[in-house]
């Protein structure tokens, strides 16, 4: 590793020693406390210059290489700071899309407000169009200088707390389905917008559904041309560039002490079967960390292949399931008793039943495991694609 990176690592470490919040999990037992902590931690990071290392040169905190970003993420995971959940979409998805597709005027309008803490969410998924984005049906009709939008969006992360929304809508039903999509920036305070949290099975509400009833969006708030929405959406979807999974894998590795502690407390440290299951899981987690690390290294070196990202996501989601399942198993009956969740506590809070259920968000959301398997087989390995249409004939057999 280069000296410059070592220097950065040292600098981040020193900064964290002073600024990293302590005992934040214990205080994050209500939604209000969670929101307050997220906002203040974000402000601290902006001030320290560590909130937007991925932004282009010239923007505050920006201009860091991917290798530098990796160092920053590693150090934050190591210090076990709160993840930036509330402003993640703003600083990554919204900002990256604006940098790539926004006009100078649009960038000047939105980017500074992100620094001030404006929250963005993503309005892509719909009922009936989860993993199949091309099939989405929220309709925008142009009337003069505005689009009039009607429809419903689902699985919008933190949508109930957001100010702005990256909205993918259908402006045409002609031609291939992807060609009829357009990308708009929606002010969530506009009339006709209702955002409601989705009650998740483990008690958290990190997603919202958004109802759009004759909502008017100025044409000036469109990114790219009408009908170009699919392409704009691709840059939103690829904006976080593998850092998240690197961080999450490292945090899972760091949380293995929770299982080890339970084993000790239950005096099962001489149970050869438990020891082996623990050792096996550790290898699997280490492999997941290594594959996330390698993915980012390949990306930095420009060697990434289509489908590589799916491998990392699938490896992580399956391993997270194994991790939480082992915790749940060793937790026994105690893990079945309800305990309040830690808001924003991550995927491994030691509240095993909650963590286990939460792990389903990773195997389902953001492209389910099944969709990732299709991508790996078809795009990375070049196996024939699932036919887009087929004729069903009854077999004679």
């Amino acid at each position, binding site marked *: 590793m280069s000296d410059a990176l070592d220097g950065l690592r040292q600098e981040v470490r020193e900064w964290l020693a002073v600024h990293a919040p302590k005992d934040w999990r214990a205080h994050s037992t209500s939604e209000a406390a969670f929101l307050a902590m997220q906002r203040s931690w974000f402000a601290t990071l902006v001030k320290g210059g560590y909130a937007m290392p991925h932004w282009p040169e010239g923007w505050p905190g920006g201009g860091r290489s991917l290798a530098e970003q990796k160092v920053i993420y590693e150090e934050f995971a190591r210090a076990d700071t709160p993840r930036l959940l509330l402003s993640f979409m703003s600083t990554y998805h919204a900002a990256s899309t604006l940098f790539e597709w926004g006009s100078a005027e649009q960038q000047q309008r939105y980017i500074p407000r992100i620094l001030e803490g404006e929250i963005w969410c993503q309005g892509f*998924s719909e009922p*009936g169009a*989860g*993993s*199949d984005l091309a*099939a989405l049906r929220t309709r925008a009709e142009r009337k003069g200088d505005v689009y009039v939008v009607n429809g419903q969006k*689902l*699985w919008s992360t933190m949508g109930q707390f957001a100010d702005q929304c990256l909205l993918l809508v259908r402006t045409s039903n002609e031609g291939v389905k992807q060609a009829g999509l357009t990308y708009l920036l929606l002010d969530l305070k506009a009339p006709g917008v209702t955002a409601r949290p*989705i*009650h*998740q*099975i483990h008690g958290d509400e990190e997603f919202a559904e958004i109802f759009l009833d004759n909502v008017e969006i100025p044409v000036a708030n469109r990114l790219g041309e009408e009908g170009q929405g699919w392409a704009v959406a691709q840059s939103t979807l690829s904006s976080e560039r593998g850092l998240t999974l690197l961080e999450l894998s490292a945090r899972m590795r760091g949380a293995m002490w929770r299982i080890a502690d339970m084993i000790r407390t239950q005096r099962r440290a001489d149970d050869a*079967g438990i020891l082996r299951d623990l050792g096996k899981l550790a290898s699997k987690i280490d492999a997941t960390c290594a594959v996330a690390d390698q993915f980012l290294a390949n990306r930095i070196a420009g060697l990434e292949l289509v489908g590589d990202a799916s491998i990392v996501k699938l490896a992580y989601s399956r391993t997270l399931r194994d991790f939480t399942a082992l915790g*749940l*198993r060793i937790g*026994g*009956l105690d*893990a*079945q*008793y*309800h305990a309040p969740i830690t808001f924003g506590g991550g995927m491994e809070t030691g509240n095993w*039943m*909650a963590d*286990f*259920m939460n792990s*389903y*968000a990773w*195997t*389902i*959301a953001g492209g*389910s*495991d*099944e969709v990732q*398997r299709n991508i790996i087989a078809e795009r990375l390995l070049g196996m024939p694609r*699932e036919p*887009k*249409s*087929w004729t*069903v004939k009854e077999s004679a057999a």
Partner: protein
Amino acid sequence: MSMTRSELQDAAAKAFDGDLPPDAAQSWTLITDMGWLMMAVPEDQGGLGLGREAVGVIHQALGRTLVAGPTIAQMLVIEALSGTAQDELLGRAMAGEVMTASLADGLTAMPDADRASHLLFIEPERIALLPTQGRGLTARATWDKTRRLFDVDAGEQQGIVLARGEAAVALGNRLSALRSLALAADSLGGADAALRMTIDYLETRRQFGRPLALFQALKHRVADMKTALVAAEALFWARADDPDADAISMGAMKAHAAGVYRLIAEEAIQLHGGIGLTMEHPCHLFLKRATLNAALGGDADHWEEAAGRRMLAA
């Protein structure tokens, strides 16, 4: 016997076919009105003498629609009383006066203890029925909201001793086997319902221009679930019909059944996709009951180890 089973199954299926889960109080009334609490009790004790056959059918039906309430605990009390001369108490229990018992150990995990007149206290060498009144209760809410468990303070041990010494050991084993049988039945009923629900969903929901049920990768997973379920059901009835099946063999069978329930409930969530992650869809109810069933009455680690150890001793 096969006729009895299918007759029982038809009646049970008709009783619960509405909401998921049905209202707890109404369910309890229905269960007592239909005489389900007396079905397993020998005829000379005022029951219907249908034994394990009835236990299996009833708890499969309760599991299928996630019926709330203390039926398993109640049946343990009834079983403990039915071998004794406590006819009056037995009659009250069969008529629906709530009496509870632990679904775990000692005085923990007792369903609906707050409305129970008595509780069964199982110790290694002594099994007694104690009045609940005057005892401290601690509600232990589980993720599964269809069960209401309590820990109970020991307090006064005064009560009716039902068995001591070797007789208590024998009764304790019988109760353990019965608890496993009931939890297994509940698991298989729930697994069956969750699998049906999933198949229905796959046939209805379209993605990429066709029903999900046409995707072969999903069909193969459904086939594996069905195979596991049918095999677990067959094992269940084989053990239920085997008069020699004791606490360990019933426990191992329960671990197997609960494992299949959990597999199916997990796959149900995954195959339902996003909607399966929300409280508004009943998928999660099955998963929560499956994991609780797996943890109650001794988990798979416990029973599989015991079964393996006995096999080596043989």
